[in-house]
């Protein structure tokens, strides 16, 4: 006795995914069930029509921006002009104060302290978190070089929180400009490509401590705090707002443990 024919078998028949022996059984079944046969013949025709309609896309010549060799070469060459234009974009956003699409309705009332840091983190995330081409200047594979750069500009030892327990992998980072000097921006993403970032810089008051506080500007949500004169904000999009608090707690725990 052979197994009864299932719908899965019939779809696999349409997709040519059956073994020879099973296909023979399905063919015999279809011969004696013309209505089912007609329906699945229709699915077969549908499959061919889709392949015919979409096939020409794959036959197009690959455009230069998708040339793998170019992409590998671009990645190896430090791209100063991209960094400069990103910095310019950041400054323009700062000057525009609230005209950024992600940052509608922001004032610039505070220029130092934890609120300023929160504000700077939101700007940095709005600019770089949404950058599909080059969200980071130095990738995670060169994290030693990245840490060296950030430590040099911040004149502070810096460590790299591991957020993989929350599903976020470190993808890299850069130094960004803020109203209060250079800051390190560390970028992480999850399996779906959702990005979160940590901005860090020394506080203007070098002994400042601040309890963790939530902040939100436009579509950017974050948690900012300061420990021993070093300020941090973990920022992300509105859709991950609820997940950010425990991640910020974990990042703070690791950062405290490393100093």
């Amino acid at each position: 006795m052979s197994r009864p024919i299932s719908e899965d078998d019939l779809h696999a028949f349409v997709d040519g995914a059956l073994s020879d022996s099973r296909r023979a059984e399905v063919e015999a079944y279809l011969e004696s069930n013309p209505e089912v046969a007609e329906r699945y013949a229709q699915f077969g025709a549908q499959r061919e029509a889709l392949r015919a309609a979409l096939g020409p896309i794959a036959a197009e010549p690959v455009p230069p921006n998708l040339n793998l060799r170019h992409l590998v070469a671009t990645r190896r060459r430090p791209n100063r002009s991209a960094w400069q234009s990103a910095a310019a974009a950041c400054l323009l956003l700062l000057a525009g104060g609230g005209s950024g699409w992600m940052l509608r309705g922001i004032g610039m009332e505070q220029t130092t302290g934890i609120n300023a840091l929160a504000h700077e983190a939101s700007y940095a995330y709005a600019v770089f978190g949404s950058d599909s081409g080059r969200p980071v200047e130095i990738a995670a594979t060169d994290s030693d070089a990245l840490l060296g750069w950030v430590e040099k500009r911040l004149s502070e030892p810096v460590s790299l929180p591991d957020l993989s327990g929350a599903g976020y992998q470190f993808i890299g980072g850069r130094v960004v400009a803020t109203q209060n000097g250079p800051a390190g921006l560390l970028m992480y993403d999850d399996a779906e490509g959702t990005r979160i970032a940590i901005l860090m810089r020394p506080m203007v008051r070098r002994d400042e401590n601040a309890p963790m506080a939530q902040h939100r500007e436009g579509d950017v949500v974050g948690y900012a705090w300061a420990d021993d004169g070093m300020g941090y904000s973990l920022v992300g999009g509105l859709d991950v707002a609820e997940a950010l608090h425990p991640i910020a707690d974990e990042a703070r725990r690791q950062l405290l443990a490393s100093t």
Partner: protein
Amino acid sequence: MALVEPLIPSLRRYARSLLRDQSAADDLVQDCLERVISRWHQRRTDGNTRTWVFTILHNLAINRLKQAARRGVHVTVEDVDEAAFATAPAQEDRLHHRAIVDALSLLPEDQRSVLLLVSVEDLSYAETASVLDIPIGTVMSRLSRARHRLAQSMADGPGQTATAATVLRSVK
């Protein structure tokens, strides 16, 4: 990397079929390839490269569709013209292609992904399950729903396309 290059035409086709916008789709493929390059050392060497690359692309596409839905950006079927699905066959074929592509765009995103990966990109059911991170039984039920639904909207004819914008807006 020699394993990735031959996949690029398929990646472009899958991205464009999901996003229905040529330049957005190519941007997405570029983003995907950059991730492939930067994470090349992180891939499982015993794993399936094609499945790994498609997983990265699919997740990026879904993210992009979610962002577009949040911002209220959507593409209506009227915008899905010959520029997006560039084909240059005979007029009759073109109309037929147009009809199936229109019908495809009426499917919910989760059914469309399964149908495209299985029927067009020739991924096995197991590979499709892995790319979409769903059980194989879910692949089969989505495939079945997609095929029935596509057949239904082809039978209903082009009058249905008027509702496409509404359907697409609900993509999340």
